[in-house]
């Protein structure tokens, strides 16, 4: 009997936490999108107003941004500092690919971030400003979408996890 109760408890905990985990993904995505926009804001002012060279600019951005979004900026800075012959665009792409697994962003978000990085450091201030503007605009739209999805799905997945666990337990008993 004790084993049965224990088994049921294990199943319930697993299912519920799986539900929470799924729900958390939505929350994290919204949060990361917001953090990314703030990071771009910092980077933009470093580039447009103080003309800081990119390796230092991304490093500063990384320090004023929260994990895990700052990983991308840290990696770009590191790749550029190594001076192995990679341009900023290539460094950016590598950094995004390296960190995509620790981020909760979806393909569409990553695509926006990637295409922003393509021009980074290779164009003049005027075009750089446009590029920032576009990326921020797109990310904002993504954030609105992500928030909508979150409000729709967060509670659903939390409840679903618990209920599935309960259903499984009932079936097994």
């Amino acid at each position, binding site marked *: 009997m004790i084993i049965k109760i224990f088994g049921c408890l294990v199943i319930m905990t697993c299912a519920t936490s799986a539900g929470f985990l799924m729900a958390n993904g939505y929350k994290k995505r919204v949060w990361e999108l917001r953090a990314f926009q703030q990071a771009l804001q910092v980077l933009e002012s470093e580039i447009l107003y103080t003309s800081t*060279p990119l390796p230092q600019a991304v490093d500063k951005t990384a320090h004023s941004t929260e994990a895990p979004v700052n990983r991308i900026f840290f990696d770009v800075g590191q790749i550029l500092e190594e001076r192995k012959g990679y341009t900023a665009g290539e460094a950016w792409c590598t950094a995004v690919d390296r960190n995509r697994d620790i981020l909760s962003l979806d393909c569409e978000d990553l695509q926006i971030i990637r295409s922003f990085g393509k021009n980074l450091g290779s164009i003049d201030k005027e075009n750089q400003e446009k590029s920032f503007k576009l990326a921020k605009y797109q990310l904002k739209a993504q954030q609105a979408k992500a928030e909508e999805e979150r409000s729709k799905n967060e509670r659903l997945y939390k409840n679903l996890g618990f209920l599935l666990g309960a259903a499984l337990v009932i079936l097994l008993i």
Partner: protein
Amino acid sequence: MHTYEKTRHIPERVWREEKGGRKRYKYIFDSLPVNIRNMIQRLSFGELECIEEFRLKADAPFIVYGAGDSAYITAEGRICSDRGRAYIVTAEDAAKALQLMCDCSVYSIEDELKNGYITIRGGHRIGVVGKVVTEGGRVKTIKDVSGLNIRISRQVIGCSSNLLPRLIRDKGSVYNTLIVSPPQCGKTTLLRDIIRQLSDGVPSLGFEGIKVGVVDERSELAGCYKGIPQNDLGIRTDILDACPKAQGMMMLIRSMSPGVIATDELGRPEDLVSIQEAINAGVNVITTVHGWNTKDIMKKPVIGKLMKGGVFERVVVLSRRKGPGTIEEIVDSVECQKLSGLGGCQE
């Protein structure tokens, strides 16, 4: 051009020296895309030392200039004279190189690009051509870069040692000097060493260093990278980097009380006033000008006027007859007076 024999025996000492010497090219290597970097890195040290310019032009062979000669570089990183074997530079190579040269921050060099060149770490200068963007009739920036000319800056320590005894007047001052030379004959290199020695002092001549003000309009003398000189210009040297010559000279006279003012490539009308201002303030001037000989420079409007006014007490003419930096003649004040057609001797 020097050819590289792979089988040659290199003594340990020479090899070490070469390794140290190669470090000087680090910033050039760093500023090139990987494929081109690999080619250049395969060149021998002797070959590298001969090269004065690397030319990257989109859809054209990769050319190097050195010792008055030109040659091609193959994709395998060898120097050859056969155009057919040369590596053909792509537009992407040129664009990438420009990005790497400015630390992937094209936005931070817009002002420099206006002048058509940038200075990288190590003081090397890169000439840039491409599509010029203008605004209100003035050059705003260059985009779609199609050609880059990497000019290797070499500081030749001590190259002015033979010349200095003729330039120093007494313990605390020097003669107003004009260095005349065709392009690529080492006038900037010579001026750089003169500045360094005057600033540090020359113990063998009993010359204590004097304060030297340098107006480095084209960032060539000091090779400043973000305001920090990459070449050794001596301990008493104040440098105004990327500053227009005429204004810079006035600024230095007023602010830094220099004993000598050194500038490169005089020639604009406004320079005339500043030079005279400097002389009036009791500051000596050392400068350079493009030209073939003393006769040639008399025809130039600004320099001709200064020569006629008897401003310069020493004129040094360079050529590359025996390699860059060959001193053809040193004309002193007596002859300067004769040249200017005034006759007589003031000293």
